[in-house]
């Protein structure tokens, strides 16, 4: 496990700050996201988790430095960041509801295609797409419109779209929120299956889910990194317990 931590696809964040008219939603964050692990990003509401990811994926402007494969993400446009191998999902599942599951995945596969080839209709299903369909377990629903999928399935489809993009770094924003227990388990297993040499960063509120699947945890509070480490390390951290006042006991007991 330690060996894979030293892969080349790591993201080095230094002094990242996002300033909304004087309000620092993210305040001087230093963070290193290493390959091959499920990295959970937790913290109370308003801690700046989503804003951090927004800044890294080109949705909001941030200052500081975020280097991935010798590129500073903060100076890049959203679609360029995706082409570099960084993908994300959103809190609200945002698949193309009118398009079929297959079409959704196929559009995500477009990053690997030459633009002029898109003038042709899809012949056979690309291998990449077929594999992703299998991995996320939606093969049987390939031709159904994505709009009819259950909530959990939509989130899996989003993960599938990231797989098809071959994103080396995935940011998942509250993917299991609103899922049933079974769906959560399946999602957790899915993430363990696909992580390989990828970096998967998961923003999460579900502490139980975090405890079961996290390889590494970063706790954020008021725009800053409060603590980092394994689940056990973070749970034993006094400052973390303070921040999670109401849930301190819960965080502690299951350790």
């Amino acid at each position, binding site marked *: 496990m330690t060996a894979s931590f030293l892969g080349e696809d790591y993201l080095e964040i230094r002094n990242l700050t996002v300033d909304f008219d004087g309000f620092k939603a993210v305040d001087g964050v230093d963070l290193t996201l290493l390959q091959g692990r499920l990295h959970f990003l937790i913290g109370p509401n308003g801690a700046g988790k989503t804003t951090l990811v927004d800044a890294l*994926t*080109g*949705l909001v402007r941030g200052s500081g430095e975020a280097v991935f494969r010798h590129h500073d993400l903060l100076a890049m*446009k*959203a*679609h360029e960041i*995706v*082409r570099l191998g960084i*993908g*994300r999902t*959103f809190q*609200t599942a*945002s698949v*193309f*509801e*009118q*398009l*079929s599951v297959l*079409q959704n995945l*196929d*559009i*995500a596969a*477009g*990053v690997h*295609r030459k*633009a002029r*080839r*898109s*003038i*042709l*209709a*899809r012949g056979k299903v690309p291998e990449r797409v077929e594999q992703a369909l299998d991995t996320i377990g939606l093969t049987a629903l390939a*031709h*159904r*419109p994505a709009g*009819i999928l259950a909530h959990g399935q939509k989130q899996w489809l989003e993960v599938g*779209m990231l797989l098809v*993009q071959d994103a080396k770094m995935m940011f998942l924003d509250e993917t299991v929120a609103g899922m049933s227990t079974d769906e959560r388990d399946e999602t957790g297993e899915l993430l363990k299956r696909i992580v390989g040499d990828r970096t998967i960063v998961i923003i999460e509120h579900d502490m139980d889910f975090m405890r079961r699947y996290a390889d590494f945890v970063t706790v954020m509070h008021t725009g800053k990194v409060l603590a980092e480490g394994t689940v056990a390390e973070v749970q034993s951290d006094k400052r973390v317990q303070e921040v999670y006042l109401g849930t301190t006991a819960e965080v502690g007991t299951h350790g």
Partner: protein
Amino acid sequence: MTDAGIKVAGVTRQKRLLNTYGPLIGIAVLAFFLLVWAPGTMTAFRLGNLGKYCALALASMGIGLAWGRGGMLVLGQGVFFGLGAYAMAMHMKLEAAGPGGVPDFMTLYGNGTMPSWWEPFRSGPFTLFAIVALPAVVSFILGYAILKRRVKGAYFAILTQAMAVAFATLLIATIKQTGGFNGLNTFTTFFGHNLYDPKVGKNLYMIAAGLVILFMLILWQLYRSRYGELLVATRDAEERIRFLGYDPANIKLVAFVVAAIMASIGGAMFVPLAGIISPSNVDAPASIMLLAGVALGGRSSLFGPVLGAIAVGYSRSTLSEKFPTQWTYFLGALFIVIMLFLPGGVASLWPKVRSLWPSSTRRAAKGTASSVDRDHEPTRDVDLDQAEPAALA
């Protein structure tokens, strides 16, 4: 998979094939009516009129692409229609003037000298090239400037509308160079063929109708292509597309440029068939009239814009013959009724009619129910506020 499962899968595959290739049957039927039936039964006058509607339909098809599929409310297609029309009209004017001659209106309003930029249009091949290249270059520059700045919705519509106003104003102001308010008219020949020869008139019609069919085939391929899917996805969730590694501006730009070229070719065909082009054919009201046909027919369907343009053109001329002063009210009322009861246009009736068929295909189609037809309908009926990144906030 169970037997029932296999059967359903088989039926949906058939359905998918029908949804993909079914439109070709429709295009064939339309081709029969336009290319065989109409020339065989209609008088030269009616055929000429139909040719004009076909020319307008060419522009409408571009609007269908840009607006229906791309979500860009293009209120100024008259500009591109005008570019093609004026290029063609200039060539025909120079043909009428004879070798080395100067168009008549220039002696009438000016001192009889021709601006140098008219000169290249003496050449037929150059004119044909300009009809495609001119709108392509202009729409690329405009589209790039507008779309890269993420101008959309109402702002995009107003900008394009302003273009049409400016274009018409410019034409009117330059009477010595462009014929001004009167436009360009009194042509004699079309690439050497006498326009007063009924055979030539019929051939002109055949070219316009043939182009309609050709454009339909092009759009059919475009709509079923990956690009077509991407365009619809961009229309419905532009911000989401960014996070799949695409720049939505590029995707929309392609549709905008293709739409402009289609409008220009439509304009070029309109001139020999109508015998005139003037600012009133290319200004803001003319642009909106083009749009009205598309909205009536169904902006996001393949057939809607064509049928809408022909229907509006036809009702416009028949109503204006019978009710010279009130016909615009009829057209306006029709427009209101359609928008109230069929916001997807007349073409959206088809899937409704088809879903009434009480057959096994209907059962199988449940769930996938008319998914393809829905693909092509915008999620919102009013495009003025395209998907904002609210969901992404």
